[in-house]
């Protein structure tokens, strides 16, 4: 390397050596507090307690609770296949009082989302945003 490149090199790494670790730590610290495990098929073992059933448009939404762990499940069944339809699913509860994206409803007939009860408590509101038809619907689960 020539002198100027060596100097630039040192300057760049003095900055990166501070910024990059800081960025990694900050990114980790601001990780959203609600862990979401989205299953893309119905093979996930369903929780035994069926707490609520709601039917809306093309979907049936079952809210299930675990007897052993502080978790709940959203079991969402699509009644009819809808090609090219993308639906975003958001959740809101009195614990985290803002809409949080929890996933996209795919063309699978059944999808299960597992949520921690530590971060969501009743009543739970779901918002389904249909990008194809540019519609949204809010459902309250008690």
């Amino acid at each position, binding site marked *: *390397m*020539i*002198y100027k*490149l*060596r100097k*630039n*090199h*040192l300057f*760049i*790494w*003095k900055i*990166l*050596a501070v*910024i*990059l*670790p800081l*960025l*990694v*730590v*900050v*990114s*980790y610290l*601001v*990780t*959203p507090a609600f*862990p979401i495990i989205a*299953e*893309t*098929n119905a*093979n996930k073992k369903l929780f035994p307690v069926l707490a609520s059933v709601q039917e809306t448009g093309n979907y049936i939404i079952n809210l299930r609770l675990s007897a052993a762990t502080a978790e709940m499940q959203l079991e969402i069944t699509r009644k009819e296949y809808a090609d*090219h339809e*993308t639906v975003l699913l958001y959740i809101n509860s009195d614990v985290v009082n803002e809409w949080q*994206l929890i996933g996209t409803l795919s063309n699978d007939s059944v999808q299960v989302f597992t949520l921690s009860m530590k971060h969501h408590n009743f009543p739970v509101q779901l918002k389904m945003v249909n*990008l*194809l038809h540019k519609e949204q619907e809010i459902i309250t689960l008690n």
Partner: protein
Amino acid sequence: MSVSYVAIGWNAHKKVYDSILWGFILLYITLFCMVNLLLYPDVTQETIIIRSTSTLAFLLLHIILCIGPLCRLNNAFLPLLYNRRHLGVSMFCVASVHGVFSIIQFHSLGNINPVLSVFTSNTDYFSLSRFPFQVLGFFALLILMMMAVTSHDFWLNNLSPRIWKSLHMMVYVAYALIVTHVMLGVVQLEHSLIYFVLVLTGVILISALHLAAAYKEKRTDAVIYKTEEEGFHLICSIDEIPDDRAITACLEKERIAVFKYDGKVSAVSNVCKHQNGPLGEGKIIDGCITCPWHGYQYKPADGRAPAPFKEKLKTFEVRIINNKVWLNPKGFEEGTFVEPALVRMKDHA
């Protein structure tokens, strides 16, 4: 060295190197797929491809970024540097598979252009926890593509080594983008402390190696050759230069390599015309200074590459007085013949 452009300058070393490299790539992907299928039997093929290529490309990028500073800290790593471009292009190929499959998986089923969807499907650009991390990966892949495309010697010669080198230092921007892409993407989604620790370790390792190498170079540049007579600076005693090797002195912000060979001493610019490699860390092979990075050669007395090659280096005047090597930092035009200083028996201690 080659007198004409060839797509890939294969030789025995590069064939062995690339065989090991692609063997490792295939082994990694195979093992990754097997472990994933065992741990997550429901995982789709697309997801396995996206995950395996992302982790592999990230690992390869770390290896690539370690090679430069390791070579500056220890010459034993130089064979890795010789083939770094092949490693870089291979890493880009792996990263491209990750990028293309991700766009297909996450952005091709909507009613807008998949590439446009990368930028518009999530517009939380002011949120750290919901930032559209795929955009960062997209720009990093563009930089890696530009580097892979211009990695050939054709571009090196046409852009000039200085511009080419500056262009390829964009890899640090790509690295910063990829680290952020990984942190705001998989680490936040997976909530995994292990991923966080691995990424942080990688970042600290790369930063520490680059800083250590840069400070070593800075110390070399900071040596002051105070003793001066008639424009000549006292560099060292003749015995300090090993046979067929050089010592490097930094005078007036320019590094000069002083070579001892065949009972003579000559000095040329330390900067190789090919990729600015450190000629002073090379040796004399077949009567020519040979760059330790890619084997470019120059005659020590006039700094010219042997015919039919046309590269030329600046040359410098050297004197040997009472066992001491004196160097004039006012260089001559590139390719100017300078009579080598002769080492007499009494010059040796």
